[in-house]
């Protein structure tokens, strides 16, 4: 029944929607909000209770409430029911029947406890536990917006799974994800893990849509990260305060942007550049790859040294070259002339493709040193660049973390038609234009200088170099192999006698000669060899699996308040700090490590409550607070706060030990009760919030598929690695995807890869795996703390007709028939036990037997249909009938629920 309080909160919430600030400004509300139960400290327990004591306490706190409302707790569930329940809860996989038989005859009192301990050690435990976390943090394999291209971040998923399996303390798990990049850890493997963990802060949706306004996208990303932080760690709806002070929780807009400031310092572009691993990301080699990389680096260093070291043959060639230059100087001057370099830019570009396609500045037109260019409401003019003769990398104007273009100009005058060789290099992409015509096009950094021979007509020509910076900073090298292009200071050195040159001059001249002029086979060979190693290294690096990580900018930027949440309406700049109403910090909380420390402090009122509530939800279907995403004033009241607080206190006092907490919950009588309901118990507690009955919840999408594949012996249990693509109906991606997206075509995996556990299924955000969506999985576009279950006929159709479900049914039929030959058991009972761990009742048995015999008759009359279903086999009719029986069992309500 809606209470008066319910209507009051509705009115308040409508007030929120309508922006009726006056309602929320009532001092009473603020006071009430500050006194909200979830914002008060959890009282510290006197001591750490043993697991057994915790279980006992759980039951006492639950049973006391049952007594109050007059509910009688159910009896313990049967061995079979609890065995199946705890397997599905801790592994997401059904148990094998023979394991259960051994369990059933085990007379020991502690057999259940030993079972729980054993399951907690299973590698499948991490895979099951990770699922809820991945929903919560919106983990997916694509960027989520516009092109929705692939994203390399599966290592983060594996990090989460491993963290659960290692039973990483919850405070450490939080700290690594929030601040892994800032932690000092000497051990390389842990260091790598901590980097990967920061992928959490890169799970927001990103775009590279042409036309996007950069600042708007940057603001959206920041808001997405901040809101996610609120949902994931605080269990609060921070997002309200992006536009105005929170109306039901005492969180101000200043608080919001102070929190946002922690996440506003990513050293990266706001756009994803449509790349799989937009910077910052790390490449993770295998140990043997790592060894090769080290060896190649060493080789590259050696060859670099050798390239510039004294070498008799090459130095002799240099002497000859110097001599020829000195002789040439008698030639008539003015044959060719090279102007000084000028540069204009940086011009920001929205996509890298545009940068390569578009003309900038006066490319294609005559040069005018005084011309200015209007670009995005700003003027840009030519400025001088330092002399290029020495082949040094010249820094060019660029934009930090953004794609931009700089244009370099050089004017060349020749008296007679001739070919001039330019030697060029750039940090990223480089294009060269003469008279509007593109003469050179390089789209990524190349090792060494590229040779570029251009035929010049008589007279004056303008050469434009367009340098495309993929992320900034940007640099450019150019040299011209021409007597006329050698600058005066270099000529002075050449004219000096060898003895009178300083060591610096010797080195400078040698570098210049070797880089620009020398074609001595020995030097060419050294250069080629070095280039080969560089290419080999770069090719391997390009192939290595990568993972998005968080890296801080060196220069910390503040986060201005965005008025009304509007990106272009900035107010006072805020420095990182935490909202005082939750837990006022003794020391300044200024970076993400300190943020994690604040969050995992034992005095923090929310962190432990939020976590414990969600673990509870995982096992009982509903949390102690039903709105597990919102423990704020507008969320639901806890149905048993004493219990929640007790568990929260034990959780942090006991060292944030997840397995210990899970074990205590699963050891409780409440968890182990029979799920039977009566009219009376439904009457008193329709949704079983009081837990007089054991939890009875439909399996999650992933477990439904994994169960079928597992019962059929088909499942591939290999852990980790890139996501897999089981079959899905044709055309799902194609019919929505952008044709330029790299995830527009779905190519299903073949063989074992298609049969991996569902947590490894490739998740494209704009078209998620259909089976998962049908069974209530969230789209992973926003943070989801819980899945609300529904019943639809589409689910029934999927269960009945999805090809892998069918494959599983056939495999179960085959297993049953084959096994039967050996064991001489009743195959029907055996199949039933395989799925449900118990014997069928006499009426169930009779029903199935009748079904089997009817199916045999039907398939005997239509043998072709049997072959269509199970393939060519002498036993096709029988096998087909058994397959349909297996399908029936997989679709039982009992099989679909835990």
């Amino acid at each position, binding site marked *: 029944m809606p209470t008066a309080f319910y209507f009051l909160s509705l009115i308040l919430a409508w007030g929120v929607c309508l922006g009726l600030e006056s309602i929320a400004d009532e001092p009473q509300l603020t006071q009430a909000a500050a006194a909200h139960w979830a914002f008060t400290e959890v009282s510290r327990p006197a001591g750490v209770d043993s697991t057994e004591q915790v279980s006992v306490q759980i039951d006492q706190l639950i049973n006391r409430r049952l007594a109050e409302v007059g509910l009688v707790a159910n009896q313990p569930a049967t061995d079979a029911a609890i065995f199946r329940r705890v397997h599905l809860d801790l592994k997401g996989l059904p148990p094998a029947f023979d394991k259960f038989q051994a369990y059933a005859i085990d007379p020991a009192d502690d057999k259940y406890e030993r079972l729980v301990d054993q399951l907690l050690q299973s590698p499948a435990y991490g895979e099951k536990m990770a699922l809820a976390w991945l929903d919560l943090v919106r983990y997916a394999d694509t960027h989520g917006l516009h092109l929705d291209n692939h994203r390399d971040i599966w290592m983060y998923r594996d990090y989460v799974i491993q963290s659960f399996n290692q039973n990483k303390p919850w405070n450490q798990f939080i700290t690594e994800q929030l601040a892994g990049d800032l932690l000092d850890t000497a051990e390389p493997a842990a260091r790598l893990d901590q980097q990967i963990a920061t992928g959490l802060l890169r799970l927001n949706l990103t775009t590279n849509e042409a036309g996007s306004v950069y600042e708007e996208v940057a603001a959206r990303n920041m808001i997405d990260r901040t809101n996610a932080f609120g949902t994931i760690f605080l269990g609060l709806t921070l997002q309200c305060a992006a536009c105005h002070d929170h109306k039901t929780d005492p969180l101000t807009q200043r608080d919001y942007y102070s929190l946002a400031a922690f996440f506003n310092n990513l050293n990266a572009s706001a756009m994803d550049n449509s790349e799989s691993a937009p910077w910052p990301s790390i490449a993770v080699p295998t140990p043997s790859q790592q060894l090769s990389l080290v060896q190649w680096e060493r080789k590259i260093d050696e060859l670099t040294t050798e390239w510039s070291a004294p070498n008799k043959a090459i130095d002799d060639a240099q002497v000859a070259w110097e001599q020829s230059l000195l002789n040439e100087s008698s030639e008539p001057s003015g044959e060719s002339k090279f102007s000084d370099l000028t540069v204009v830019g940086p011009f920001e570009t929205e996509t890298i493709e545009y940068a390569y396609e578009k003309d900038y500045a006066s490319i294609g037109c005559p040069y005018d040193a005084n011309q200015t260019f209007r670009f995005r*409401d700003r003027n840009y003019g030519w400025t001088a660049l330092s002399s290029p003769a020495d082949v040094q990398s010249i820094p060019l104007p660029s934009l930090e973390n953004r794609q931009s273009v700089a244009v370099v100009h050089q004017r060349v005058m020749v008296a007679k038609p001739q070919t001039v060789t330019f030697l060029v290099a750039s940090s990223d992409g480089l294009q060269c234009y003469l008279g509007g015509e593109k003469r050179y096009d390089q789209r990524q950094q190349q090792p060494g200088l590229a040779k570029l021979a251009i035929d010049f007509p008589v007279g004056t020509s303008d050469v434009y170099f367009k340098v495309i910076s993929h992320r900034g900073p940007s640099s450019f090298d150019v040299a011209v192999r021409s007597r006329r292009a050698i600058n005066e200071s270099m000529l002075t050195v050449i004219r000096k006698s060898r003895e009178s040159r300083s060591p610096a001059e010797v080195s400078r001249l040698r570098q210049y000669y070797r880089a620009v002029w020398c074609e001595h086979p020995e030097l060419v060979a050294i250069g080629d060899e070095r280039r080969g190693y560089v290419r080999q290294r770069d090719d391997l690096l390009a192939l290595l699996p990568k993972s998005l990580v968080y890296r801080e900018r060196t220069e910390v930027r503040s986060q201005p308040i965005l008025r009304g949440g509007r990106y272009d309406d900035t107010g006072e700049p805020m420095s990182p700090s935490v909202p005082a109403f939750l837990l006022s910090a003794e020391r300044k909380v200024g970076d993400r490590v300190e943020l994690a420390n604040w969050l995992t402090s034992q005095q923090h009122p929310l962190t432990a409550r939020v976590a414990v509530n969600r673990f509870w939800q995982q096992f009982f279907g509903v949390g102690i607070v039903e709105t597990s995403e919102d423990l704020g004033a507008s969320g639901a009241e806890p149905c048993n706060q004493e219990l929640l607080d007790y568990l929260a206190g034990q959780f942090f006092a006991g060292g944030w030990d997840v397995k210990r907490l899970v074990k205590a919950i699963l050891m409780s009588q409440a968890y182990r009760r029979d799920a039977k309901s009566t009219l009376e118990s439904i009457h008193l507690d329709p949704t079983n919030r009081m837990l007089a009955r054991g939890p009875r919840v439909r399996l999650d999408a992933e477990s439904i598929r994994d169960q079928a594949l597992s019962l059929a012996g088909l499942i591939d249990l290999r852990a980790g690695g890139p996501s897999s693509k089981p079959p899905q109906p044709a055309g799902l991606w194609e019919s929505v995807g952008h044709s330029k997206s790299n995830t527009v075509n779905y190519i299903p995996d073949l063989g074992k890869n298609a049969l991996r556990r569902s947590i490894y299924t490739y998740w494209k955000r704009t078209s998620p795996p259909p089976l998962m*969506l049908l069974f209530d999985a969230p789209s992973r576009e926003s943070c989801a703390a819980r899945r609300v279950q529904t019943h639809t006929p589409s689910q029934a159709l999927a269960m*009945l007709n999805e090809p892998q479900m069918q494959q599983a049914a056939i495999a179960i039929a085959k297993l049953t028939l084959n096994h039967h030959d050996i064991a001489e058991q009743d195959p029907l009972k055996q199949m039933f036990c395989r799925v449900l761990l118990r014997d069928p009742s006499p009426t169930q048995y009779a029903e199935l037997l009748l079904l089997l015999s009817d199916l045999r008759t039907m398939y005997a009359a239509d043998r072709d249909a049997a072959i269509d279903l199970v393939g060519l086999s002498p036993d096709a009719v029988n096998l087909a009938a058994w397959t349909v029986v297996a399908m029936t069992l997989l679709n039982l309500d009992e099989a679909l629920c835990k």
Partner: protein
Amino acid sequence: MNRPLDSAMIARRQFLSRTGIGFGAAALAVLDGQVAGAASPIIAKNAKAKRAIYLFMSGAPSHLDLWDPKPKLRDWYDQDLPPSIRGQQRLTTMTSDQTRLAIAPSPFKFTNHGDCGMTVSELLPHTAKIVDDLALIRTMHTSEINHDPAITLSCTGDATPGKASLGSWLSYGLGSENENLPAFMVMTASWSGRGDDQAIFSRLWGNGFLPGRDQGVRLQGQGEPFLYLNNPSGIDSNVRRRMLDSLAQLNREHFDALGDPETNNRIEQYEMAFRMQTSVPELADIRDEPQHVLAMYGREVTIRGTYANCCLMARRMAQRGVRFTQIFHRGWDHHSHLPRELRRQCNDIDQPTLALIKDLRSCGLLDDTLVIWGGEFGRTAYSQGKLSGQDFGRDHHPRCFSAWLAGAGVRGGHVHGETDEFGYNVAKDPVHVHDLNATILERFGIDHTNFVYPWQGLDQRLTGVEPAKVIRQVLAD
């Protein structure tokens, strides 16, 4: 109201609150004086529409070349857009680099049609025949300047992904009228314009925070009409029926043992699935359509997945009580070669759109079926890239664009709102996409301000936080 709940009623309430589709009405139902589910305590009243069909032109069609003639722009050919018109408004970064914003007048002829004399482009000769049924809004505007956020805003009421779509709201609030079909169905049509066009996203028909049963179900243009609809090869409907009989029997026994109403619910879903295996093929099979009806939709009507085919399907769904049908037709993002590409796109949609309206009327459905036509934003009056003769492109333009409504008591032949002489700003009567959505809900008898779902601390609604308004002027009654 305060009488003790009897057990049957508890079971029924629980059933309703957690049930799937197909049960007459969901959130807005009043059950024994009680509100079921977590919905807001309101009842749909004075509903003019029982169902709606949304023809969504993804990519943003040019209002200037279709619905909003600006003859004076001919005098402005290749001249720069006056800065006073642009004002301080932002441009996309695709044209903010351009040194010039050269006006590109529409090369297409506009003529007056119908009794109302509405002016329509020569590209839509068929649609022009039914202008007396259309309420045209020339002053749509949106807050977003790029496709992904703008189409997400149009379809879910928020540019940030994660919210519930319009159809999901209707499914949640009103349920289905046909227990053998979903309340919300979606089709993605093929298109003729350039191949690489804007993506669409399953979030556009996603349930967001609403229950999963309210997500849009796609009628597919290839393969099975519904995901997993067909029995595996080797299982015919007799085998399936026989199997489901045993399944139901076993589940009933399980219910008797455990007493969980969810079990009965599951039995019902399997039965409904079985019925859908008949009702959906029957829906998708157009062989029963008379020749003159097929001819009305044009030659492509028999090709699955074409816009013409989708329109016919939409009418068949309307007949069968599908609450909300949405057709996404892509290919309208004309940054270049607009005159050529726009003609192709209009060819796809023009005749079938006319046919849909006429067909709905002849079936007696137009009176209580709302039809909506529109995109996510409009296009600029100036050319993107070089304006050369009759070839040009237009960039994104969120400041104004056109959409129309038909059926369900909208004011046919009415033109709402005026844009300035450049088709750049709204001059009179702006209509935000939230207003359009509020108006759509109004037709279903739903007050958008009260139609809420509590989620993440806020009573979420389709029309957002800022006040939105129903556009009464486009409604006849």
